[in-house]
């Protein structure tokens, strides 16, 4: 949909944005959008091939808690924690993914099963409250501004870092698109039995994409934890966190490269707008509108906002 030139202009504007509008608030919101877009894009790697997971909160929780607990207790740098957290998520994905794909759990059953998984991780975090701080969560030890410990008091550092991560996620999307895996997974998503008769290794491809998605999601969670320096089982695992990832991606359109990012940006902007304009008087009011909008969009625009726009423009050509 975008030509090369408009892409370059878009990224130039985004890169210059903090210098044109040096408002810490706007930079903060933009950073949140980048981090969550990174995560929703990683979610869509699976979602676009029919593997709709409602349990990515499990990967968020595993990644963020692994890295942050190792940092708080052993002073391990989050750069290694990021890899270890990602590997934890991959390990979890291998166990669960193999079980699911081996027994042929797909569609709504897969969604329900993963929904339960996200909740299992949240409850486990709460149950081990001596280590994890339970439902109260815990705060990361402050190191001031330090590249080694991936902490910064300057918001702008995280702005560029998370933007870099988001671009990375999009490049991985492009790489998947060009690989043989994409064709195989699309065939599997459309008709699993037909694909297997063509000799496509269903379990293998599904496992690979699940592992990539799990790893990236966990990395995004570590980034988020480093940015807000506070971890809580309800924002980083459990049913609501898992559903919100899926909803952001679906609202934007999980089948297109820019869909998850557009969805995330719209939802975070909407939440912030309503929160700022109505304040604490209506806590949850923004969420009602958001939920209702979601239900309507899921019914009437199953391809998502961006996906529908894209379709509309393609038809005009």
């Amino acid at each position, binding site marked *: 949909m975008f030509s090369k030139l408009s892409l370059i202009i878009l990224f130039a504007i985004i890169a210059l944005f903090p210098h044109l509008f040096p408002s810490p608030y706007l930079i903060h919101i933009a950073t949140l959008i980048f981090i969550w877009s990174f995560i929703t894009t990683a979610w869509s790697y699976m979602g676009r091939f029919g593997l709709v997971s409602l349990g990515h909160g499990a990967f968020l929780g595993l990644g963020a808690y692994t890295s942050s607990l190792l940092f708080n207790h052993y002073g391990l740098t989050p750069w290694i924690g990021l890899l270890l957290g990602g590997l934890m998520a991959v390990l979890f994905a291998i166990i669960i993914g193999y079980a*699911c794909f081996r*027994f042929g*759990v797909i569609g*709504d059953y897969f969604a329900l099963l993963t929904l339960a998984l996200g909740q299992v991780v949240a*409850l486990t975090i709460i149950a081990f409250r001596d280590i994890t701080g339970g439902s109260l969560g815990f705060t990361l030890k402050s190191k001031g501004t330090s590249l080694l410990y991936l902490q910064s008091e300057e918001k702008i550092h995280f702005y560029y870092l998370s933007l870099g991560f988001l671009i990375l996620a999009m490049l991985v999307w492009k790489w998947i698109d060009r690989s043989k895996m994409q064709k195989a997974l699309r065939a599997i998503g459309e008709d699993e039995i037909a694909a297997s008769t063509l000799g496509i290794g269903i379990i293998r491809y599904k496992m690979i994409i699940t592992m990539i998605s799990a790893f990236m999601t966990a990395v995004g969670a570590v980034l988020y934890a480093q940015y807000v320096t506070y971890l809580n089982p309800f924002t980083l695992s459990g049913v609501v966190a898992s559903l919100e990832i899926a909803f952001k991606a679906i609202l934007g359109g999980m089948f297109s490269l820019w869909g998850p990012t557009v969805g995330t940006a719209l939802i975070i902007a909407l939440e912030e707008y309503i929160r700022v304009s109505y304040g604490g008087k*209506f806590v949850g009011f923004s*969420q009602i509108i958001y939920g209702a909008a*979601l239900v309507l969009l899921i*019914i009437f625009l199953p391809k998502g906002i961006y996906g529908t726009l894209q379709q509309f423009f393609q038809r005009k050509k």
Partner: protein
Amino acid sequence: MVELLLNAVINGILLGGVLALLAFGLNLIFGVVKIIHLAYGQCVMLGMYLIYTFVDLLGIPLIPACLLTLPLTGALGVALQWLVINPLLRAKANPLTQLLALAGLIIVFENLAQVIWGADLRGVKVPLPLINFGPIFLRASNLIAFFGALLTLLSLYLFLHKTYLGLAIRSTAQNVDSARLMGINPGLIYYTTMAAGGILTGIIAAFFSPIYAVHPHFGGSFTMMAFIIVVLGGMGSMLGGFIGAFIIGIVTSVTAVLTSTEMGEIVALVIFISVILVRPQGLLGIKISR
């Protein structure tokens, strides 16, 4: 320790009675309308808030307040059918889309409750005694809920098996097209089923009110529990749901006594995951293709 476990088992059985009612509602809706009502626990939560409003703010005694709540939760069911489920069925949405739309309702309901009633715990205070038989202690509210739930299940059974409307509902569940040939209007049956499911959430809310204090996220764990039971018993199998409710009630309550409440829930979820993996048709379900 033995006494503690005995208490846990008996409390689990009592909890199982109400859970059976929840599972029955979900099963009924799944069987007839073919929708997984992911926001069912949240409907119960709204019912409990209605009872709280009637009792605490308007000063109506508990029993009339509960009776007042039933038509309102029934109306909520009808409204859901009209505003959400009918459009979904008309758009011929796949099961996954339906699931997500209903999941969106969770966000709407929970935040609606938070905006109207706030995030604090709200409870109806009813002075009910603690009854003991030797070493076993029982809360009267749990006993009422248990026997009330059994009575409700019995009357629902009679409604489904002894009335023409019940017959129409059962035949719609079996085969919509044949039911239509017999002169049944499926659209009307869907509305009736959702109304019955809605009234059921009101009844459950009435039994829960003296036991639990309600908060906006109250419904979540009960929706999850109801699901676990329905899947364990087999989707659409009423008897399976009934047995599953008692299994889950006892397992969670015993695990909670031995370790912690969270572990109880984790064990139930692990059972759920294993059942989906190994025996997706459930204990008593008919083999279906996924």
